[in-house]
């Protein structure tokens, strides 16, 4: 099984211990943060392991790209911690066990990864995807497994990821466009952190959308919308992709409002917090969600743009109930192209 490559020396040099000091859920001063981080590195118990809500933010706060979050998760598992109740943890592990329930389209040089999220199939239509829509794959065999970071089960990732990379590579494409930050993050950031070679080009769908929109720019009708963007936790694994949100919005004539809970200060959708913890986790999740939606309302937006399907599933009905229409990034682009919105679970058609 592959091992995490974590560089202790980099951590020793660090002055700010940003990973823990900036954490929204810990509220630590530098000295305590350093002490706790040292304990974590040395394999001793730290309260940080208990209080971590697995929001991935420390991964982004680390100035050295040293993967503190992956280390925390490794340690949680070494201590045999259960973040979610056992039954829920097993349910998720079993959900994505590869058992031959996958589907592969007509693979070309470039392929689309729909992860193991059937709701994506509704979204990848129209002009944006006309050249690649048929070249897709979906199923647990190709599932990135990053979600197990939320369950302190990095071992599942370490065990499954090499085979997943192999399965994808065996399809024979040169480049894969990933529609989910977690997938992109796992092949761009997590696989290298575990020393797993990735023999295909890893492209984020934002980059793909941006290029495609430029090609179709003559057909774009500016949307003139003020929107809130719901930045997902997994975007913290790949902060270098966030600028595409602004780039795409400017092509579409959309304003990403300045609000408290965006960019590095984004609030996680809290689906996992609700899943993992008891009533106080539920209250925390409700509280986070209310604060987030209130923040959107104060910014005067009509739409909330989602990137991650799970954020969408956790928040879409709640934002809609407050009069803010949820829309996935792909649907937003299709709207600017004057295309019919999708009707499925993540389709904008449900809210028109």
């Amino acid at each position, binding site marked *: 099984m592959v091992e995490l490559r974590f560089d202790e020396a980099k951590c020793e040099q660090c002055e700010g211990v940003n990973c823990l000091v900036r954490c929204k859920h810990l509220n630590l001063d530098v000295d305590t943060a350093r002490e706790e981080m040292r304990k974590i590195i040395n394999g001793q118990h730290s309260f940080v392991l208990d209080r971590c809500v697995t929001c991935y933010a420390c991964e982004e706060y680390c100035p050295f790209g040293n993967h503190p979050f992956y280390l925390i998760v490794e340690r949680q598992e070494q201590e045999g911690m259960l973040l979610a109740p056992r*039954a829920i943890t097993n349910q998720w592990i079993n959900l994505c066990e590869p058992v031959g329930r996958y589907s592969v389209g007509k693979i070309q040089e470039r392929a689309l990864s729909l992860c193991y999220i059937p709701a994506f199939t509704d979204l990848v239509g129209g002009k944006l995807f006309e050249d690649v829509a048929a070249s897709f794959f979906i199923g647990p065999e190709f599932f990135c497994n990053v979600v197990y970071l939320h369950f302190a089960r990095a071992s599942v990732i370490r065990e499954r990821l090499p085979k997943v990379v192999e399965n994808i590579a065996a399809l024979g494409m040169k480049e894969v466009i990933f529609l989910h930050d977690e997938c992109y993050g796992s092949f761009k950031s997590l696989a290298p952190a575990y020393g797993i070679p990735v023999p295909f080009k890893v492209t984020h769908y934002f980059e793909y959308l941006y290029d495609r929109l430029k090609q179709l720019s003559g057909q774009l009708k500016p949307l003139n919308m003020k929107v809130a963007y719901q930045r997902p936790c997994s975007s913290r694994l790949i902060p270098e992709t966030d600028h595409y949100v602004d780039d795409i919005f400017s092509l579409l004539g959309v304003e990403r409002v300045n609000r408290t809970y965006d960019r590095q200060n984004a609030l996680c959708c809290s689906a996992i917090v609700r*899943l993992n913890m008891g009533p106080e986790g539920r209250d925390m999740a409700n509280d986070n969600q209310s604060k987030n939606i209130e923040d959107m309302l104060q910014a005067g937006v009509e739409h909330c743009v989602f990137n991650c399907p799970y954020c969408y599933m956790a928040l879409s009905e709640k934002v809609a109930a407050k009069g803010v229409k949820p829309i996935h990034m792909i649907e937003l682009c299709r709207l600017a192209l004057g295309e019919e919105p999708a009707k499925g679970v993540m389709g904008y058609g449900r809210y028109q």
Partner: protein
Amino acid sequence: MADISSALTEIVGKGYVSQQAQERYFYSQDPGLMQPHEPDYVVLPASADEVQRVVKLANEQKIPVVPRGGGLSLTGLAIPQRGGILVDMRRMDRILEVNERARYAVVEGGTSEGRIIAYLERHHPTLRHSIPDAPPQATLVGNAAIHGQGRLAQQYGFTSDMVTGLEVVLPTGELCKIGSCSMSPYWFSKGPPLPDMSGLFLGWIGTSGIITKIGFKLYPRKKLRDVETFVTDLPDLIPDIVFKLTHLEMVEDINIWFQPLPLMFKGNHHMDIYLTGDTDEELEFKRRMVWNALSEYIEAKDGGFMWLMPDVKPTFMEMPQKSIARFADVRKGGGFQYAGPIILVEKYPDCARKTEELGSKYKLGYSVMARMIGRGHCMMFGFAFTFNRANSDEMDRVRKALDEAIEFSLEHGGLPWKPTVDEQRAAMDMMDPNTLKLFGKLRKALDPNGIMNPGNWEVS
């Protein structure tokens, strides 16, 4: 017997009697495992008067009479074991009255669940009845005649507990009213404060008469409804969890299910806890109470609430639950049967383990589905197995597994629900002899010629 046929035609009209082979074949079976047996005649009466005349004729001629609703009770209860006249009640499907303030309705004896659901939704959106998860063509009388349980069973008990009056054609042909309707224009009570005679018909699977009208309670239908699914891998905790949940007096329905496939469900027991409210605040308050009640299990990491995403939630919210019918056809060829004893909730862990054991012993796809009845007074524990009707070996294995399941549950103090003929015999063998004697006397008094659904509950 051309004269019987023409006498029946005389009663119900030409298009509503049949001796045709295809109709006799159709009515000889149900979707379960019981051996088929053909009726000699099939009739579809349109009124209580027609039912009365059919029964009088049968009684004179000593011909068996078997009433049938949707024919979906699965254990052969509407299969005419001794032939005779099969009375398909489904032409008698009128909704006769809804008393909104007293919250009851009166319908004819062949009215389907689907019709009642649609009618209430359209005309009385603040009222609901207890909907079982049977396909919508099942009839309400069929459900009451077998002591079925619907979505409100946890709050208000068996469907038969919700009955507010009956009109019955006795085996000797008299038309008889039971409950408040016997002396008042109102159908609000099946007995009290009078001596309650509804017990002579409810749960008697058509062996004591044909129900031509039924009154039943309606309940408030809140504007909002939601479900939370609590999941644990420790079946031994279930009785305690149910006790805590029912103590809240806030939960609509509680269903527990356990099945090995798809893989994500393996090893876990899922408790669907339904909640209702008129406002978000009311619903949220109840959700919070439920979470708080179960917090100790979550903190111990022994159980937690599953995330029901928007793409799966509608399946959980359906009434009736189509997923049960889908499970019924999982092996293709549409075979499905469950033994569903009514048993104490404390027996859940033993019954769940027994289901697993039977599944592996007989190499069968299995599923457990348990519905709480009353505030945990008891539950219906369904040992369910699927089969392909074209595979006789598989059907045989299912029969054996179900026999063992029933034997096991009787040993554990349970009672057979909608028992097959064999299970009825086993139950009568275990019954207190004086109880059995009384049962025999009542049967004889009501049905001196033994014409009503013979083969069932026969006290020798």
